[in-house]
């Protein structure tokens, strides 16, 4: 098929304007050779195609294969364990996939390099096309010679008994009526017209391509100046500093979940209060479709779970800790909910393990919490199960599991790149509307005075690659013919030379 469209056009007329010869090879000094070669390969559509296909393949792999969550990637031990589980699924391929970083495709350096290369490719392509498009848009010949009208892909001849000036005037009015913008070149015995509609349409291509580069820039801005904590947990009644370089703390007043009668969740709601430098700055409810926003930081409802409210006293009875401990993680063996807190003065870390949910747990009966105390990496006391309300002694301290409560898991995100993303999106839609729905149409006319005082009007429209213009030309032709009081059957279109 390669021949069909191009072949047909190759025999056609020379393109009127703006068919700028690209990359004419003039002899150049050697040092420019490398640069121009790099430039040339960066500006090739083939590179774009290869990059897009490569990205598609990578993305497909990233979709089909399980991806290790970021928290697992950050922790080598957790990742090793994750890989072990993956081995059950992918067998011997696990090593290969791991080497190729296919379990974390979207965050690898080479994936970002591919995207950066694509952005560069788009920029270079756009720069290369700028001159050509600028020329076709703004520097167009008004007067076309007769050969153009004999060979144009769409052409017509209309004869009228009107004198030249009248005829030209009517043609002008007919074309203006079809939203064409006109340029006139009057000479002795003839009037040449160039009619142009939506001439800025082609600039849409710069908007769409610029928007893609902006999108990529937006992700970079977000990555560099933004932060994210996908698992910020805070128990009911507790206040926790957000960290991440802010002076913000979050207090959870109440978490609520609601369910439909037959089981599916209906609503998750966290009533939170934000403090900055100790002062209350914002209060609100976080719901799944309604995050709380403060100074560019968004708090999203992500998950929730069980909290054990613990009290720890030293020998003198002084309370050294009294707060909710969110059991937001899972133990490696046993898959039990676990949370932890530190007692810096005693140099201890405390782990609180809850019973496995949904079944009777042989190790931890319902209503009890297991407390494990560590100093550095080693156990500071034998683990103990604590019944609610009954104190127990571990490592010289008295621990009490006071009651159960709940925590809210919030996803906290600051992404200053987001607004760039929305601007880029708008730009892309604008560009596509220009390109597809306000397409450029160019038409030339030549009104020639005949010796007998009548006028012949020649119309010509060059072919366009994206779409056939038969319909557009038909309607213009009949409009012009009507304006001239002529019938428009004088020059039917050649049939079928656009087919293979």
């Amino acid at each position, binding site marked *: 098929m390669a021949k069909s469209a191009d072949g047909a056009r190759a025999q056609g007329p020379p393109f009127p304007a703006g068919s700028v010869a690209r990359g004419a090879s003039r002899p150049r000094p050697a040092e420019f050779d490398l640069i121009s070669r790099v430039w040339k390969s960066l500006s090739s559509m083939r590179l774009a195609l290869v990059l897009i296909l490569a990205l598609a393949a990578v993305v497909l792999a990233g979709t089909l294969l399980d991806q290790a969550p970021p928290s697992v990637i950050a922790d080598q031990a957790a990742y090793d364990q994750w890989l072990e589980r993956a081995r059950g699924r992918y067998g011997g391929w696990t090593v290969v996939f791991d080497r190729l970083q296919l379990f974390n495709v*979207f965050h690898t350096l080479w994936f970002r390099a591919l995207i950066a290369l694509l952005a560069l490719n788009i920029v270079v392509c756009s720069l290369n096309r700028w001159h050509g498009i600028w020329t076709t848009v703004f520097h167009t010949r008004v007067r076309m010679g007769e050969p153009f009208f004999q060979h144009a892909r769409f052409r017509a001849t209309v004869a009228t008994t009107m004198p030249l000036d009248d005829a030209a005037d009517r043609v002008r009015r007919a074309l203006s009526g079809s939203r064409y913008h006109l340029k006139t070149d009057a000479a002795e015995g003839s009037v040449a017209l160039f009619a142009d509609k939506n001439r800025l349409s082609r600039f849409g291509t710069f908007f769409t391509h610029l928007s893609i580069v902006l999108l990529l820039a937006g992700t970079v801005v977000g990555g560099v100046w933004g932060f994210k904590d996908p698992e910020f947990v805070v128990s009911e009644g507790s206040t926790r500093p957000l960290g991440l370089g802010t002076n913000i703390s979050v207090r959870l007043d109440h978490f609520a979940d609601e369910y439909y009668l037959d089981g*599916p969740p209906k609503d998750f709601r966290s009533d939170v209060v934000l403090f900055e430098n100790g002062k209350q700055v914002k209060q609100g409810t976080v719901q799944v479709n*309604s995050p709380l926003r403060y100074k560019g930081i968004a708090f999203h409802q992500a998950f929730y779970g069980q909290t054990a409210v613990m009290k720890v006293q030293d020998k003198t009875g002084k309370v050294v800790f009294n707060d909710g401990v969110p059991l937001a993680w899972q133990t490696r063996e046993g898959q039990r909910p676990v949370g932890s807190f530190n007692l810096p003065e005693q140099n201890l870390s405390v782990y609180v393990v809850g019973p496995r949910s949904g079944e009777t747990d042989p190790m931890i009966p319902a209503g009890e919490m297991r407390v494990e105390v560590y100093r550095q990496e080693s156990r500071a006391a034998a683990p103990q199960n604590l019944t609610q309300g009954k104190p127990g002694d571990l490592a010289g301290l008295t621990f009490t599991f006071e009651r159960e409560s709940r925590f809210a898991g919030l996803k906290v995100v600051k992404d200053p790149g987001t607004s760039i993303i929305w601007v880029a999106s708008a730009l892309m*839609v604008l560009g596509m509307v220009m390109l597809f729905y306000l397409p450029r149409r160019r038409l030339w006319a030549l009104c020639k005075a005949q010796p007998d005082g009548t006028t012949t009007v020649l119309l010509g429209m060059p072919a366009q690659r994206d*779409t056939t213009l038969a319909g557009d030309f038909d309607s213009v032709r009949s409009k012009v013919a009507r304006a001239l009081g002529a019938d428009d059957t004088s020059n039917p279109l050649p049939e079928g030379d656009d*087919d*293979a």
Partner: protein
Amino acid sequence: MLDLSHYAFVAAMFALAGAFLLYMVSAVAGRTVHGLSLAGGPAAVTASDDRPVSGRYATILTVNAFVFLTASLTFRSIESGHGPFSNMYEFSLAFSWGALALYLYFETRYHLRTLALVVVPVALGLLLYATTVPDGIDPLVPALQNSLLLTIHVAVAILAYGAFTVAFAAAVFYLIQRDNSLRWLPRKSVLDEIGYRSVIVGFPLLAVTIILGAVWAEIAWGSYWTWDPKETASLVTWLIYGGYLHARVMRGWRGQRSALLLIGGFGATLFTYYGNLFFGGLHSYG
């Protein structure tokens, strides 16, 4: 309301089955549909008189099916209080609706019925599939409780998919039509043009779908892009049609290679649509 919706659905299915039969009769008996004016100028209007009656009734039945389907979806929306886009049953009806909407637009515009031979079976297949999945009204889980975005995001997607279905039909017939020798099919240039026209409808709509999805994801999930399987699949679909448009404008690709791209694109569309059945991910609601 739910009963009414169901009756309308069944009526749509029968109307569509009837329409399909009549389109086939029309295609076999008619053979007058080729070589019509592209823009639907005067030439196309005069041609309608010699066309077989079966074609006209096929169109009427399709319009009926479309109206029934619209009614079915509307009744469901009234009953559930949100756009009919929350489970596979509703998705399938909506996809079918989108395909019919875009098909009818192109039939009207180009005065061509041939494309129905592909689009109508696809639409019918979607309805038949819908009969195999649970058709209850599911309450919205928290992530979907955004009436405005749920409705626009999915409605735009449906129209994009419908446009790609029409492009697919045009591509299939392009490949069948050799050297313009099959007189019951439109000319190749017409099929090629319809393929292009439907892509320039579907491509921006898919872009808008993805953008609205990103807006929603930012609100509900906290980031505008997470490489969720459905996001990824729709991006790949979009890139395929983007490739088609670039190849056409920059390289003058037409015809067979373009047609194959359109068929691949439709494969990707179906994958995007039903991918959540295989992959889970954040979009697995159905």
